[in-house]
């Protein structure tokens, strides 16, 4: 593993074609009266049909904003997409009209959120809410939509779906509500499912149920999934590839096994070392010192440099490129190889 070839590549040099969804060099900022927050600073990633990509990051890393940009549900203002492309099957969503984007939303790319209670309308029965989508988007008749809604609720393993179709959101438990939301997202057979912290609000036993369900559905329906989360444990269980975000950039990108075996960015390494583990009785936890940056004043050079144990003068002066490591991974660190070799020990 020491024979890694390191070569700087511009961020947009990802291979052409083939990707179901590809984000290229996206820049998003939030303009508030306090100043301009640079929330996304040149994010590129891609998703192939049928795979699960995990986007990992802490609050403020830009992981959810990227997803909202893909869905076209960013509030503008304050958000402002400065540049970049979001290619779905080769077409740039950002240049499309609102009408065209509406066709993509739900039908091609669907999204589920962390808070299922606020994502469901409290005054309508859940069955009605699922059927509503089918009727307006697919032109189904009332009876057909109802039948399909029951099928969908069965699909997400809501017990006694036929009986519960008339129930209101508050009559469901947290886990069941999340299932309802998944059923709604699946209603139009999307090819991509974006799950934004789908289990964060749930208890651990329910969390396991939902992650199982998502993994099964992805496999059975042949969808591609983007899983947005801060939980390294959840990622390890389901993802094929991981993109780690920090301060609006992707700092490391790798397949899930090599990333956990030997992280090649000091931030990823720090995160993995700082979480308490169930299977290891720890001594003192390693920490990442300091705080995530204020997005209105992102540090010069590498945004992680004030917190980094590997920091050198070059990190303060120069923004690191994505270094391509031999095994198809990238790491936006001047010392990527060193970090990876350290981690592998």
């Amino acid at each position: 593993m020491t024979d890694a070839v390191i070569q700087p590549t511009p961020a947009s040099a990802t291979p052409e074609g083939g990707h179901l969804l590809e984000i290229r060099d996206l820049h998003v900022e939030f303009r508030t009266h306090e100043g301009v927050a640079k929330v996304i600073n040149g994010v590129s990633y891609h998703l192939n049909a049928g795979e699960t990509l995990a986007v990992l990051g802490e609050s403020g890393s830009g992981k959810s904003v990227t997803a909202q940009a893909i869905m076209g549900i960013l509030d503008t203002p304050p958000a402002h997409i400065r540049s970049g492309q979001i290619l779905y099957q080769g077409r740039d969503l950002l240049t499309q009209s609102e009408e065209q984007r509406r066709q993509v939303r739900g039908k091609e790319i669907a999204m589920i959120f962390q808070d299922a209670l606020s994502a469901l309308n409290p005054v309508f029965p859940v069955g009605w809410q699922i059927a509503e989508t089918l009727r307006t988007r697919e032109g189904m008749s009332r009876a057909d939509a109802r039948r399909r809604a029951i099928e969908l609720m069965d699909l997400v393993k809501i017990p006694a779906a036929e009986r519960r179709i008339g129930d209101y959101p508050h009559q469901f438990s947290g886990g069941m509500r999340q299932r309802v939301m998944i059923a709604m997202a699946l209603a139009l057979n999307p090819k991509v499912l974006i799950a934004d912290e789908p289990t964060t609000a749930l208890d651990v036993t329910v969390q396991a149920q939902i992650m199982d369900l998502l993994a099964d559905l992805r496999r059975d329906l042949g969808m591609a999934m983007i899983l947005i989360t801060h939980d390294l444990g959840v990622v390890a269980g389901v993802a094929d590839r991981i993109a780690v975000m920090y301060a609006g950039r992707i700092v490391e990108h790798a397949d899930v096994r090599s990333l956990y075996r030997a992280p090649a960015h000091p931030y990823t390494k720090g995160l993995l070392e700082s979480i308490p583990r169930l299977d290891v009785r720890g001594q003192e936890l390693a920490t990442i010192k300091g705080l995530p940056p204020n997005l209105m004043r992102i540090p010069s050079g590498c945004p992680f440099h004030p917190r980094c144990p590997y920091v050198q003068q070059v990190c303060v002066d120069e923004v690191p490129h994505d270094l391509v490591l031999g095994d198809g991974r990238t790491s936006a660190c001047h010392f990527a190889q060193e970090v990876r070799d350290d981690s592998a020990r």
Partner: protein
Amino acid sequence: MSDFETVAASENQAARRGPSGEPGTPNQVATQKPRSLAGDAWRDLRRNPIFWVSLALVLIVALMAVAPGLFTANDPKDCMLSRQNAGPSGGAIFGYGFQGCDTFSRAVYGTQASLLVGALSAVITGVIALTVGMLAGYFGGWVDAVLSRAIDIVLGIPLLLAAIVLLKRVGTDSANVRLGAVVLVLAILGWTTAARVVRSSVITAKEQDYVAAARMLGAGHGRIMLRHILPNALAPAIVVLTIALGSFIAAEATLSFLGIGLSQETISWGQDIDTGRIHMRESATPLLVPSTFLALTVLAFIMLGDAIRDAFDPKLR
């Protein structure tokens, strides 16, 4: 906004117990002045033209009440029937009224009574509302049940009708007694909305974790109410009272217009509007001038209250 909160990030300090001393971290903290919630609200208000316009109006009106002589040289009580409905002349920029008094001068001098009634009623209202709202919201249970029903009952009384009934019984025409009576009647009938606002913000504040924290430290009811709940319930109360001040001024004008408000001795907009109305066909200015003063003053207070409420509303930040 929590995603990119303005963090006073002092890396060195936060990691005191970890490895310290990293290169290239500017201490951002030293340059930042402490800011309070009120400070944030003030920064919002500063940019709001409505705030400035309404504040300017309120200040002008207040100055008019304190020193009317600055605005007009004419004596409002210097009335001569020979000048009945005469046009503008000699400082009387809006001419003279039916009694031959300077219309503008009367409106300027009338400010004092109106503002005094409004301010005094608002202060008394505030005291009643804060006390009742605080006790009802903080203690809950039967205290709340009794006080809330009291609020409902008072709220059910039509303000003007009750004011007419009560003020009719004040026999004397002494200026101070009548002014006091108007203030008391308005305050006694007008505190309910503010009390409800206080009660609900007290209930919200009471549920906060920092109140539980104070209780766990052993803080008594008095300290919790005054130190932790009152400051967080005060802002909405002040807003409601500012708006109420405007409506008290309007109510006083209505009562004086009906002839049961302030004493005949006192110059007030309400009475002038009444006089102006009777003789509207002969000349409209004696009606329009005090009406405009009244409308602008009431509007100024309501706009000011609205602007402050928007600035303090945490949902908008």
